[in-house]
């Protein structure tokens, strides 16, 4: 791969809590991430894993606590607001909620035109043509440009959000759960659109999501996050075919498949408990409190490093993956405990 569009090194983001409660939230705790030219990378994890915080740090909507962020080779970690203005034409973000991310007082046409005007990329008739072209590209009928956001459906709003983000032709698009708030059939349409646009315009994309099937459908490579760290990262095919980390294995087995025969016969691992608090994350491997195969004290004492476990760029952080890349067998460790039988 020639030049990476995005290079994130040891990104950390801590939030201090008010003095009354005290403590620090370790939202992101040392994340490395690179995205190549035209590559679509998925960042998955449950709520509280820090995936959205990573996205917001990259576009500098949040100030990173530590680490570096390089966009097109340029360090933007500490770029000033003024300097960031130039960077914004290179990276854009699409948000989850299409209802609150469009200005309700502006028409769709004005919303899409605004970045072009701010960055002085077009004016007058040229601006007009560009906006019309963008709306057409995202599949919005031309008469909708005079409408206000509240007059549009969720899917249409998300299309407008995409048109706005892509108006400046960024090299990186950070998409934070862009389809989670939409109905299934609309989701399908927006995912198809995102895929088409990516293929046509060639931008790189960080796709943040919790739905594994969506990520598998769209992404070239996937990073799995748990409590502020990446626990596994590999190309999409290998992640879904041969997950190594016990957390990834559990996550994949917990996702439901819309096929009754398959869903009811496949081996499921039901993790116990909730994701621990990032205020006092567990010691050692942060997953050891829920891990069905954790070996105490090894896993609770030492934090495993993210290493290439197969020699083919399959990164995972788990003490129990053997030197030849064999993953711990999570499925057979499961004790099916039935709460009803205790009564």
């Amino acid at each position, binding site marked *: 791969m020639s030049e990476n569009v995005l290079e994130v090194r040891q990104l950390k983001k801590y939030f201090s809590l008010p003095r009354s409660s005290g403590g620090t939230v370790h939202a992101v705790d040392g994340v490395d991430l690179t995205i190549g030219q035209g590559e679509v990378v998925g960042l998955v994890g449950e709520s509280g894993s820090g995936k959205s915080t990573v996205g917001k740090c990259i576009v500098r909507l949040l100030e990173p606590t530590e680490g570096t962020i390089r966009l097109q080779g340029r360090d933007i970690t500490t770029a000033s607001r003024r300097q960031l203005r130039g960077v914004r034409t290179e990276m854009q973000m699409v948000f989850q909620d299409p209802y609150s991310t469009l200005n309700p007082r502006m028409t769709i046409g004005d919303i899409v035109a605004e970045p072009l005007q701010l960055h002085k990329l077009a004016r007058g008739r040229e601006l007009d043509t560009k906006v019309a072209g963008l709306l057409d590209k995202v599949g919005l009928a031309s008469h909708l440009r005079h409408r206000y956001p509240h007059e549009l459906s969720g899917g249409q709003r998300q299309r407008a959000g995409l048109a706005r983000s892509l108006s400046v032709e960024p090299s990186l698009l950070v998409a934070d759960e862009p389809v989670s708030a939409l109905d299934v059939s609309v989701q*399908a349409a927006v995912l198809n659109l995102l895929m088409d646009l990516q293929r046509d315009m060639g931008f790189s994309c960080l796709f943040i999501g919790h739905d594994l099937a969506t990520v598998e459908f769209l992404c070239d490579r996937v990073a799995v996050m748990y409590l502020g760290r990446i626990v596994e990262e590999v190309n999409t095919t290998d992640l879904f075919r041969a997950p190594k980390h016990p957390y990834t294995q559990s996550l994949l087995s917990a996702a439901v498949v819309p*096929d009754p025969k398959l869903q009811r016969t496949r081996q499921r691992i039901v993790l116990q408990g909730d994701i621990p608090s990032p205020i006092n994350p567990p010691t050692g491997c942060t997953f050891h409190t829920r891990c069905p195969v954790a070996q105490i004290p090894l896993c609770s004492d030492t934090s495993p490093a993210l290493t290439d476990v197969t020699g083919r760029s399959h990164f995972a952080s788990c003490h129990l993956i053997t030197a030849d890349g064999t993953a711990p067998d999570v499925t057979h460790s499961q004790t099916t405990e039935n709460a009803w039988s205790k009564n």
Partner: protein
Amino acid sequence: MTPRLAVKDLSVRFGTDEGEILAVDRMSFSVEPGEVLALVGESGCGKSVTAMSVLRLLPSIASVSGSILLDDTELTTLSTAEMREIRGRDISMIFQEPMTSLNPSFTIGFQIGEVLRRHEGMSRRQARERAIELLELVRMPAPRSRVDEYPHQLSGGMRQRVMIAMAVACSPKVLIADEPTTALDVTIQAQILDILRDLRARVGTSIVLITHDLGVVADIADRVEVMYAGHKVESGPVDDLFANPQHPYTVGLLGAVPRPDLAGGIQVRLQEIPGLVPVLRSEPEACVFAPRCVRATAECREAMPPLELLQPRQHAACFHPGSRVADYSEGVSA
């Protein structure tokens, strides 16, 4: 077997400033004891309104017609006081948003106990002990200390467990679960689905599961009713319906979900269903799905297809049924 809950010709209309809206149109379904029935559809299809009307929880602007039988009791004609006796005891409900459906100013033990004090005449102390048992039942960690906590001290998954504990406190005959796992993470969703499964097996509760997630349906439902714009468009046993869907809307819904495990891992495009769900003002005279349907013909735009038995146990309301994948590639914007 006589059904536990039988809904017949249920119609729900809302009077609004912009005229009347027909949210549910002549919907019928029934649930056997111990059965899990899924009502499936996208937002605006009337699935939640159907559930709310069974419990008589709709606001006064709604006018409901039709019959709702719980065993031998007709619920639509009960007085408010009589209905209150049934709610929480014979039929209970789990809502999607566990945060907004718990009272923030009372402990969860008090809220679970309220059901027991109201319906079972338990004392405060008895109700608290039973609440702890119920929290154990829904696999709440450390139930004895959690029982005195307030909703804001709990995670989303734990709150949903409290909701379930409340709903099953009196071992209801019917449990209506409206998107019970939608707001939750997948690992928590798996836990909640397991709890519902156990509940059905142990107490014999019938479950009406309202969801848009076809994966959840595949996991837990016995039978499925697919709804579109207030109408039932297809129904059948879960295996048959997924393997051999008949209505083009069902076919479209199944095709819209990313399934990279099919097609050898290379899925090129998802199926789109162009257009929007219509808002009905009056009883439609044509097929409600026709404007978005690629199979639609003149017949579909002139008459309403009746719900017909097409496969041994599968009904669909369509003049052109069949499981072939419709060609939606020439899509309009969604």
